[in-house]
């Protein structure tokens, strides 16, 4: 490769390499001060003592984490038992997020596949259609979902109207409603990475396979699926992670019985009844989980991409 012809090729170059530190400075400063430091502060706060009316007293204590995992009785002097309440909430969050992800995969994969196999000029339009809802306020989308699923809402009206059921079914305030809400919120995130993966897939490969008498389904399973694995993995992460930490869906659609991590954390910072260090601790636990998941999946994805090439 002789220095790259002046006609181009790579457009990632080093034209401004002298100025780059200055160019990056604003981003570094702003994000360092208003994102990195806050996260570090959050870590610090999780090790402090709670102040009665919210806020903290600057005294080191592991009470927050302790409270999260262990039950020491009402007065704190009994031998430690595992505190299941919060762990349950955590577990439920994972469950709900997983269910929403599966739902998104079931609907999202065929959709992405379909769009990617449309004629090239039509694809951007399809993609556009899929992404518009995402740019509508999440709150509004969740509210509209709430509106639809109410006992007296349109969905029930329709189901009764077409004779499927006689009495309105109570979907709101159930697990399923929350899953539905999460699925609805992040569905485009499942579709887009899979779409990108399938689009990159070289369909002439499967035509070559067809030449060798492989049937449709065999081709699909052994050649296409491995190739789109990275996209599927990315889509799953992009739905699972935000779902886990979600607040609006469980709050508006799940009611009191469906507390998830997001609601738990939010509660700690509201008004005077909150426990800031506890909230910070719960956030740290959530953050750690998310980072671990991200790392695992990132490794999976890197492996899957190597297989493709």
């Amino acid at each position, binding site marked *: *490769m*002789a*220095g790259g*012809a*002046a*006609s*181009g090729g790579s457009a990632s170059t080093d034209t401004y390499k002298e100025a780059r530190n200055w160019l990056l400075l604003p981003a570094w400063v702003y994000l360092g001060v208003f994102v990195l430091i806050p996260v570090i502060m959050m870590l610090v706060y999780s090790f402090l003592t709670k102040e009665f009316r919210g806020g903290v007293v600057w005294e080191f204590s592991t009470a927050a984490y302790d409270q999260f995992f262990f039950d020491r009785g009402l007065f704190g002097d009994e031998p430690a038992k595992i505190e299941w309440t919060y762990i349950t909430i955590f577990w439920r969050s994972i469950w709900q997020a997983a269910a929403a992800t599966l739902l998104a995969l079931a609907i999202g994969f065929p959709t992405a596949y379909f769009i990617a196999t449309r004629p090239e000029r039509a694809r951007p339009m399809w993609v556009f259609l899929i992404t518009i809802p995402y740019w509508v306020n999440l709150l509004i989308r969740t509210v509209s979902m709430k509106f639809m699923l109410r006992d007296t809402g349109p969905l029930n009206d329709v189901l009764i109207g077409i004779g499927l059921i006689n009495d309105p079914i109570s979907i709101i305030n159930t697990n399923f409603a929350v899953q539905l809400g999460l699925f609805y919120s992040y569905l485009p995130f499942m579709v887009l990475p899979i779409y990108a993966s399938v689009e990159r897939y070289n369909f002439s490969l499967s035509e070559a396979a067809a030449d060798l008498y492989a049937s449709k389904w065999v081709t699909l399973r052994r050649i296409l699926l491995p190739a789109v694995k990275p996209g599927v993995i990315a889509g799953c992460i992009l739905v699972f992670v935000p779902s886990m930490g979600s607040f609006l869906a469980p709050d508006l659609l799940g009611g009191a019985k469906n507390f998830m991590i997001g609601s738990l954390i939010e509660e700690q910072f509201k008004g005077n009844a909150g426990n800031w260090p506890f909230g910070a601790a719960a956030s740290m636990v959530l953050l750690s989980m998310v980072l671990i998941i991200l790392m695992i999946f990132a490794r999976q994805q890197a492996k899957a991409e190597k297989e493709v090439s």
Partner: protein
Amino acid sequence: MLSLIKLYGEVAMSESREIAIDVRAAVKRYGDFTALKTISLSIYDNEFFTLLGPSGCGKTTLLRMIAGFEDVTEGAIFLYGDPIADLPPNKRPVNTVFQNYALFPQMTILDNVAFGLEMRGQSKSQARKAAGEMLELVQLSQFAARKPSQLSGGQQQRVALARALAPKPKVLLLDEPLSALDLKLRKAMQLELKHLQRETGITFIFVTHDQEEALTMSDRIAVMSAGELQQLGEARDIYERPRNMFVADFIGETNLLEVSVDAINAGRATCHLGGGHELSCNSVEGVNVGAKVHMSVRPERLFMSEGPTDSEGLKGTVRENIFVGTDISTLIDLDDGPKFIVRTSNSDRGNKRIFEPGNEVYVNMEMEAARLLVD
């Protein structure tokens, strides 16, 4: 070392001319990879100079080093005596015509051409006036208000040319500017460029991989391969007296024979082929007695006969005739060795015998046609 002196020797013959670009022992490395392995050459003032070679040979790298887009790892470059290797491109009075033209899409043609002048400090109106004159020179004045995307490929090319010439650079660099044009347009532009160079008197350094293009346009050609300079000289010189296998093969077509040198007397070498057949031709520097070298003969310097004419004829069987309009190329399998191509022009048809596939034929060389190669 010897070859370096020989190179300089060819150049030194015309010392009276001013040197526009002097490249001294330039080396270019990217990490472990060496793109240019010590290149030295001089380019004269008011010369149409071409860097010729296959892709990857380093010709574009050298051009970019002269323009200032690549650092010089080792060595020096002089522009009319001033060292420029450390100067950024915007401080070198050298302009480039890029392969993809790189016309600024959001500006009109006029503003594109005026850009260099504006950057040099002229006011917008001054620059536009001078740009207008430049557009007249390339006959594109009527498009002055258009954007580049509204012009054809050939027109864009002329705009790129005008833009690069407007600031009156000392040297103009052209990086395969004609490669995107179709054949007829390309041939027209080749002549136009040549005339432009004569008219403006600016030194043109032209990069191409097309040897016919190089032969058509250039005063001198530097043939490069794998980061090294293979041969430097005038077009005719390079064609008729190639120094090594690469040059002989890359420029035009040639036939190659492996020969052993038996004796060298008064500048003539006597050699023999594998089957014992004897040949003689001019000797070249660097070839010694007993050496096994290649001999190159151009197809158009050969002629065929039914029977042996004199001792230089080679016997063979005709395989195929290829009609290429102006000539007929005859492919022959020699008894003694490789496949030969003989090119016969289509003039004087009545008097020439056409040899059909399967015919036996003798291949004869014209005087001084054969050339020994040093590699």
